[in-house]
């Protein structure tokens, strides 16, 4: 009676065990790279907007404060997007015939809102509150990066939970003086972070909130 398996099956079996292990590692590596890469996180991907609004121009060239447009950042969970009226407070006088600004004028004329594309989009199961962070000395640029260098805004951080929790465990590494919160050029950790960090944490009464329910309500 003939053998069912050829003698080469022995080596084939051993090789396939090793290959299965390698394939498992490769799959995990591929899944991790996909998850951490900009395809999934959209980090460094500039988003198209109905009007190509340039933060670089308005912040760096014109020197407009963040709060001129994002008015509710100190009082609300949501930083706020300016109503068309805010745009028109300048652009009814400046660049009144610019083709680029037609959607803004059309919105003001027709009363129909401009639909901006959200760049920083937390999942719906995460609660985030801007005002507590801003009022406890976490600056805009800590999370949003150098917006004054972005013609179209993109994310600089993946907004993953690990990233949130890193700072919630060690707020002293990212806290800055309150009067520097809206200073886009201020860098954290500061050169003297080890010295001022713990002092500011004590001064502002910052607690390390790492309960699940802090963010997942």
């Amino acid at each position: 009676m003939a053998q069912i398996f050829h003698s080469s099956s022995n080596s084939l079996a051993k090789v396939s065990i090793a290959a299965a292990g390698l394939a498992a590692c490769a799959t995990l590596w591929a899944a991790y790279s996909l998850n951490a890469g900009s395809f999934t996180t959209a980090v460094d991907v500039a988003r198209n907007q109905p009007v190509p609004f340039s933060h670089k121009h308005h912040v760096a060239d014109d020197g407009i404060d963040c709060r001129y447009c994002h008015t509710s950042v100190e009082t609300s969970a949501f930083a706020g997007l300016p109503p068309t009226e805010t745009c028109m407070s300048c652009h009814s006088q400046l660049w009144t015939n610019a083709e680029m600004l037609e959607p803004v004028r059309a919105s003001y004329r027709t009363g129909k809102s401009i639909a901006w594309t959200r760049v920083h989009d937390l999942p719906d199961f995460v609660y985030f509150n801007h005002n507590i962070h801003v009022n406890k000395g976490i600056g805009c640029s800590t999370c949003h990066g150098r917006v004054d260098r972005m013609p179209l805004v993109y994310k600089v951080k993946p907004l993953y939970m690990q990233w949130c929790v890193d700072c919630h465990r060690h707020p002293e590494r990212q806290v800055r003086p309150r009067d520097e919160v809206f200073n886009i050029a201020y860098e954290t950790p500061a050169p003297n972070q080890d010295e001022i960090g713990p002092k500011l944490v004590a001064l502002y009464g910052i607690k390390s909130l790492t309960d699940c329910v802090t963010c997942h309500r």
Partner: protein
Amino acid sequence: MKDIKYWRSLEELASTAEFRAFVEDEFPNRTPDWNDPASRRRFLTLMGASVALAGASACTVQPKEVIVPYVRQPEQFVSGNPLFYATAMGVAGVSTGLLVESHLGRPTKIEGNPQHPASLGATDAAMQASVLTLYDPDRSQAVTRNGAIDGWATSSAR
């Protein structure tokens, strides 16, 4: 050496055509079950595949989301925060002051108005529940007068 032939049953030894057909069938007497589209076996196969693939559905890029700000933002409105409107509700000829919490124009919660001298912020179950009447499909969709639709302006002018 003589070729020895083993057999396990008398039927196999006789080797009738009927018996050979029975042996060649991998699942004798079960074929109707396998071909039935709604069988338990098929159900488990599909459920297993669904559960295995359910995890893969999480591996998606977040869909595009838009932010739609006001054209002319109402006064006192702070985006992200609710607005509270003072109103009153009459029960048996007695009015109680209420505060209605409103998120983006949608009333969500009714509590007593702490500045109302009679109730000092207290409410009863009917007042708490009255927020639901605002979403009642039978609620009038417009201002009516004597059964005919009337406008806010003409109604309040009378």
